[in-house]
């Protein structure tokens, strides 16, 4: 058998796992691994400027492709800098493997230099973690890490690697396992047949059904199955922030996004529904509004691979544990077996009602020829990219404008931090997408606040020539915070104003990128055209948008899903 050191085993295991790209930052406790990496030509490493960005890059890489992203960092500060990134991936069920260095086993517990209990610190935000105490443990730990990350409900896995375990002088027999089995881990993939029958019956009987689709449908690659079922049964489809693209936003049955900033028609349909069919969604508080007023007349049908998501917030009348993709196929088979079909006409009255809600045109905003409206930026971005770009987002008003005004056609096209709401996610995530899919246009919608949380990555983009487009909706403020202060704190803008935003154009230029400042509405489209014409350049578009604009619709706190503000002056 081949003899390798611990450090070599780490790199060889990654190669054997098929890893092509890795994102990281070196330091004392991973020097041996970095040395082994230096001698390996199959894995491309991206040196970031802050470890948090490495994790977001790996995360974006994964979200864009479904391939498990991989991170390598040193112990102590390198490891703790990853936590926000790991938590971001955890909240959105994104598979990822984070390899962290650790002080030598003999020093663990002594408050050694750059020692942090990474297993302990990361515990609440990982799916699982491993501490390798012997070099011989490394291949199995890495195999298990990739297996756990990607199967069942996906999530991040940490592998902590003490320095002595990597020792390049000590060689051990190496064999990468073909597969791993864990007696304590057996995720349920297919749904219970009896429950599937009940689900089909309920769907056939429903007069006012809504398909409520979340990120689980994207993770499970179930988009085609969702579309098929929706079309067959003529179902209206509402998508969560995480589910955007799982059902095409351009489809005539799409109601758009639901929830706190969901469309009027999506939220009205939910509230007035008699059957809510949740598919890979988890009844997040950003969706339900007040739980006790949630969809009073609806039977709740819920498919989720994670049993803990079912009946956690809203009690499910028909729970089905399983992979969305598998269960939807089982439902198709059951429909054939039962000879069940839904007449398209069946739901005509329901669609008529929905059309009256659509007629309210909740996304129409006041246009201006003096100042650029943020909604208009997204609409123009859609036009210029023909709706085909991969869009990542940061967190704030710009994120909601992105979600509402760019109808996503396909899964993995909209990439944002939904669960944790991490400002600083968008730019490094876009970089990860571009590394994974160099032929795709990748644009990051961001704000003047968020972009500054990981702006140092302009340097990484310079080093590796990662030509993403940064679309910054500059409102000189933490717009979303300001919106809440205007609405709920009598306008007291406590620390939501950015008194000194840098000259982003010069900043981009300092890193040898292209910066373009856009102030006037008529400059917007030409600037976007120009930016996307520069295929191999990073372009930073600093777009001055109307700072007074608010995101609407917006659910009214403590209300039901149908209680919404529709503009500064209208409410339901």
């Amino acid at each position, binding site marked *: 058998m081949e003899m390798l050191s611990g450090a070599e085993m780490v790199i060889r295991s990654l190669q054997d796992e098929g890893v092509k790209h890795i994102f990281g930052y070196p330091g004392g406790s991973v020097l041996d691994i970095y040395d082994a990496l230096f001698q390996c030509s199959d894995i491309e490493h991206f040196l970031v400027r802050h470890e948090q960005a490495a994790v977001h890059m790996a995360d974006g890489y994964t979200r864009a492709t479904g391939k498990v992203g991989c991170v390598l960092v040193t112990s102590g500060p390198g490891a703790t800098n990853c936590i926000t990134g790991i938590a971001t991936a955890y909240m959105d069920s994104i598979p990822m493997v984070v390899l962290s260095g650790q002080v030598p086993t003999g020093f663990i517990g002594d408050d050694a230099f750059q020692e942090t209990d990474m*297993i*302990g610190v990361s*515990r*609440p935000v990982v*799916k*699982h*973690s491993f*501490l390798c105490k012997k070099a011989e443990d490394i291949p199995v730990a890495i195999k298990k890490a990739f297996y*756990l990350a990607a199967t069942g409900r996906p999530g991040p896995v940490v592998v902590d690697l003490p320095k002595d375990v990597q020792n390049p002088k000590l060689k051990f027999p190496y064999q990468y396992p073909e597969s791993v089995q*864990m*007696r*304590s*881990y057996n995720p349920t993939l297919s749904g219970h047949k009896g429950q599937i029958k009940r689900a089909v019956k309920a769907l056939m009987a429903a007069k006012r059904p809504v398909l409520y689709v979340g990120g689980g449908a994207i993770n499970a690659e179930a988009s085609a199955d969702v579309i098929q079922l929706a079309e067959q049964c003529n179902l209206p489809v509402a998508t969560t922030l995480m589910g955007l693209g799982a059902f095409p936003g351009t489809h005539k049955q799409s109601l758009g996004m639901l929830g706190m900033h969901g469309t009027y028609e999506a939220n009205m349909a939910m509230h007035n529904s008699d059957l809510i069919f949740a598919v890979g969604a988890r009844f997040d508080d950003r969706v339900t509004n007040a739980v006790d007023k949630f969809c009073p007349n609806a039977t709740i049908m819920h498919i989720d691979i*994670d*049993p*803990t998501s079912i*009946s*956690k917030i809203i009690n499910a009348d028909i729970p089905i544990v399983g992979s969305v993709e598998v269960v939807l196929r089982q439902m198709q088979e059951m429909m054939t077996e039962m000879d069940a079909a839904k007449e398209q006409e069946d739901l005509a009255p329901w669609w008529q009602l929905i059309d009256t809600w659509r007629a309210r045109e909740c996304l129409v905003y006041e246009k201006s020829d003096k100042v650029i409206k943020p909604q208009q930026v997204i609409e123009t971005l859609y036009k210029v990219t023909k709706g085909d770009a991969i869009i990542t987002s940061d967190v704030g008003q710009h994120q909601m404008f992105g979600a509402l005004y760019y109808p996503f056609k396909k899964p993995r096209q909209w990439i944002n931090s939904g669960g944790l709401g991490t400002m600083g996610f968008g730019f490094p995530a876009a970089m990860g997408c571009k590394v994974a899919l160099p032929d795709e246009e990748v644009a990051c919608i961001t704000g003047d606040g968020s972009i500054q949380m990981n702006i140092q990555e302009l340097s990484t983009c310079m080093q590796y020539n990662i030509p993403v487009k940064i679309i910054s909706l500059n409102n000189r403020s933490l717009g979303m915070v300001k919106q809440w202060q205007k609405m709920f704190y009598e306008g007291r803008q406590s620390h939501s104003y950015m008194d000194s935003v840098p000259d982003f154009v010069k900043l981009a230029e300092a890193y040898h990128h292209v910066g373009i400042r856009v102030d006037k509405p008529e400059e917007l489209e030409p600037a976007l055209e120009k930016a996307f014409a520069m295929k191999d350049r990073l372009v930073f578009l600093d777009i001055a948008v109307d700072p007074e604009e608010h995101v609407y619709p917006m659910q009214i706190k403590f209300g039901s899903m149908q209680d919404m503000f529709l503009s500064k002056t209208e409410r339901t």
Partner: protein
Amino acid sequence: MRSILSILIENEAGALSRVVGLFSQRGYNIESLTVAVTDDPTLSRMTITTHADERKIEQILKQLHKLVDVLKVCELTDGAHIERELMLVKVKATGAKRDEVKRNADIFRGQIVDVTQSVYTVQLSGTTEKLDAFIAALGEATEIVEVVRSGVCGIARGERALRP
């Protein structure tokens, strides 16, 4: 509602902290927790007593099951079961109190396992209520120096078993 949960878990470093972490992270309460290796040295068995409504217990069971190290989880209080707790109580035993303590220990079927001129140490096992009652009785009879309890461990009656 008081529930007793039995957990079969990999006997590995970090497994216990994942269970304890889950409880604190999600705001579930732990009244007592016992853990030790089983006849199979690769497995540990835990017993946790907690207070929560039925829906919360359901969620706790699911969350426990979701932990990668956990093989099996069940709620013992769901069916017929046996629960035991072990207690050691050190009490003042001087003068007339010596007899009084001995009498109480006999009534509760406790054993005096250590004796000095001034103290007795009594060992008692039984349900939580029995132990509570014994402490109350001893408190009337003499002065309690210290108490240590193992926490509940339990097992289902009959054929029902928690095996891998």
